[in-house]
């Protein structure tokens, strides 16, 4: 049913992604789908990498590590942005079309009051794409 799973990854908060990563591995194996791990990073140096290039290398290494876990084909793709916090949703929606993903699996937080002002990324993306979106809440 699904051929290409897109997984947004924030390398700065990899610990909170664990539950989602497990789901990705199971789903990819089940549908024999390939996976693209997508990273959005600031063009300015940040806590993970000092250049978008370095971020890409790290995301690449991460993708390889995940390949070792689930054995499905992996790709890593990085988007640099002047203002990643504000542009994240748009970049991810564009990425879905660009890479041709049919399922997006991403980690999200529990609903909170602040969502009314600043909606969660997962919810926002689901309203802007034709692909299926699977939001994984923390345990």
């Amino acid at each position, binding site marked *: 049913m699904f051929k290409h799973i897109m997984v947004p990854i924030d390398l*700065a908060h990899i610990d909170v992604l664990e539950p989602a990563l497990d789901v990705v591995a199971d789903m990819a194996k089940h549908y024999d789908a*390939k996976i693209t791990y997508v990273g959005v*990073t*600031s*063009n*300015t*140096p*940040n*806590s993970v990498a*000092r*250049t*978008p*290039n370095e971020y*890409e*290398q790290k995301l*690449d290494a991460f*993708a*390889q590590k995940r*390949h070792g876990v689930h*054995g*499905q*084909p*992996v*790709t*890593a*793709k*990085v*988007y*640099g*942005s*002047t*203002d*990643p*916090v*504000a*542009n994240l949703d*748009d970049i991810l929606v564009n990425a879905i079309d660009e890479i041709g993903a049919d399922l997006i699996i991403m980690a999200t937080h529990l609903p*909170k*009051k*602040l969502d009314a002002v*600043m909606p969660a990324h997962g919810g926002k993306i689901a309203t802007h794409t034709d692909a299926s979106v699977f939001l994984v809440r923390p345990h």
Partner: protein
Amino acid sequence: MEKNTQRPDDDKPSSEGIPAPEGASNLIDTDYVIGQDNITASPMGIDVDLHGKVFLFSSIVILLFVILTLALQDQMEPIFNSMFSFLTTNLGWFFILGANVFVVLAIVLIFTPMGKVRIGGADAKPDFGYAGWFSMLFAAGMGIGLMFYGVSEPLGHYGTAMGGISMGENGIRTDWAPLGAAAGDQAGAIDLSMAATIFHWGFHPWGAYAIVGLSLAIFAFNKGLPLTMRSIFYPILGERIWGWPGHCIDILAVFATLFGLTTSLGIGATQAAGGLDYLFGIPSGDTTLVLLILGITLVALGSILLGVDKGVQRLSQLNMVLAALLLLFVIIVGPTLMIATGVVDNLIGYVTHLSALSMPFGREDANFSQGWTAFYWAWWIAWSPFVGMFIARVSRGRTVREFLISVLLVPTLASVVWMTAFGTTAIDQVVNSGITEVQDAALELQLFTMLEHLPLTAITSFVGITLVIVFFITSSDSGSLVIDSITAGGKVDAPKPQRIFWALIEGALAIALLLGGGLAALQTAALTTGLPFTLVLLVGCYAIVKGLMSEPRAK
């Protein structure tokens, strides 16, 4: 920037090395991890990610200054004022000399091979198109000032220049005319007044911005240091920039930026309200002022939530379109021929008088060189951490040459055209049409008074007021982003609520100071940071040369 790690014929990961898509650059080797001194927490479900010391101490300093100024207004104002006039009187030469250094370095760099270095690495692609990029540079850099001084400054200098030199009893000049004045010589006075105005809005302010912007851009994008003021000190202080010397530089930058923005917001709202009162008879009481500040803050808030690309960039472009329309209108309905020849004449006048106007020593026009020039220089330099940091952030992918031409030459030319159009029209009204209202009006109303004597006043005045307000919004939103990034240890990807916090603080402080008094006092306090920042910028000059020497050049 895609790297496919999968071979086409099988699903095993490749082990090929990764090419460098951004091209060569020369990263500084440091163990410091950006954000390592940050505190992350989630109070009440709101995520924060802040540089503990910089955030804490700048907040304390800011609060202390606000409380002191509100409580002891009558005592604080004279202290700040005498501090600042001490600076411009005794150290005016230092500002004037420093600003010359910035301009000379910036111009020289355009023509050296170092101009070929690309910000962000040899193959980096620009993040913004020319129109959006240039609009943001200009809107952050001076925008609002052009609205207030476009008419009043040429008129002011024209008046003093015509008045000639007057000596006090002690042999010191008491007049405010630039250089040797031009007593009774109308053409000479116009020439001198326009040259002096353009001087204050030309190469020198943009030279200061260019130095801060370029040094930050090189040290962030090419050297891999965080986008915050302390980074340009790396060539001198080395790893010590991560300690207190660095904290102090950043705290000072937050102080200058926040108070610069807050007090401009407060004073600007007063002026905008004055304009609304003058044009539409809307009473300019406290309610109007508070509503104006709330409105400006709310739109700025929306803009920073949308981010640099969709918020700040679009507003800046709107700004440019409105400003260009107003400029075009003035050129067409004003004395078109006089403006057209004026652009050339004033450019020649500017170049002719440039060396005399920028001479730091042995000036006989002390009132002008200290009260006008040194004041402006302190202002631009205090403003430079904010403008410089913002233009650095949006300038990735440009070569050094492209950056300097766009930050130095193009805005200077734009200032020449703007000042000529508005100044010449106003002077023409006074000299040739005998209309004196413009000269007699309060400074902030001179633009509107001038527009009143041109056709379609209702429309142009409305555009004028809108421009003033939008210029404030574009300063406020980019300023909040800059403060947020400094207090987050150079991170531009800190959680959104932080930028909201700073935009709200600006608005709240502006309202508190407006109602409680002390706006002018705190603005003076912010201007005194021009002195330490002149030193910071001189270090920046050294850092740029040192940094660029070790960078590979674009082909």
